[in-house]
């Protein structure tokens, strides 16, 4: 039986649209003051404490090597079984269905955990596979 459309939270970052499964997006909050982390990769902007938990803030544009000239005002909190993380967002678009399973955007690196192009009413986006992306990020560098 074919899979039906899954609701995704769509947001903009670095001039591109991204989407995370709606059931994994736990909150959208204003970007707080961040604490720098030693040895952090450029895409890890820092961490902040939220409801008794430390959350890493990931800049998706830097993560996939896109130039960044925007100021982020919000973060999308994403929670999977292994933990939580926050993605920078310039604008939160809303929830939209994504049909089927678009192909991976890359064979390695973070792009291996992004699928697209996926059509949403606001345009084309990259659908993030949060479990895989968190696993990739936890390998460190």
């Amino acid at each position: 039986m074919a899979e039906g459309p899954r609701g995704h939270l769509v947001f903009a970052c670095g001039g591109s649209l991204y989407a995370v499964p709606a059931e994994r997006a736990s909150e959208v909050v204003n970007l707080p003051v961040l604490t720098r982390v030693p040895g952090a990769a450029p895409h890890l902007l820092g961490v902040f404490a939220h409801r008794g938990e430390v959350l890493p803030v990931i800049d998706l544009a830097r993560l996939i090597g896109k130039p960044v000239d925007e100021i982020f005002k919000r973060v999308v909190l994403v929670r999977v079984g292994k933990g939580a993380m926050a993605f920078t967002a310039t604008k939160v678009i809303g929830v939209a269905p994504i049909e089927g399973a678009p192909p991976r955007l890359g064979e390695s690196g973070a792009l291996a955990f992004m699928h697209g192009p996926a059509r949403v009413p606001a345009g084309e986006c990259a659908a993030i596979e949060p479990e895989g992306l968190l696993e990739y990020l936890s390998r460190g560098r």
Partner: protein
Amino acid sequence: MASVDGVVLCVVSGARLAVSADQVDAIATAEGPVWDAGVAFGATSDPAGRALQCLGRLIRFDSIDVVATVGLPVLPVPAALVNTAHGALTGFVELSGTLWPLVALDRLLGFLEARSR
């Protein structure tokens, strides 16, 4: 929740690091061969800063303060950061509403050595 008794708070290039006091052999002047903690933030520490002695080696910071609080709660490291800086992050402590990354000095030394190669 895990806790720590006594921390040494270190600032380098505007960034904060906390170290469990039991890992520190001494707080010393940063004279002679030192490892620069600023490297962990892509910067350089103040040459006139202070140093922590650990395993017979010195790590230099801009400033160092000791906080004797007992039973300070340690927030766990997020999954995305477990291997950052050679796994030197062991948690986070919150003091007066400010978050401090808690690091293992021996692993931080390993990271600084690797970065300097």
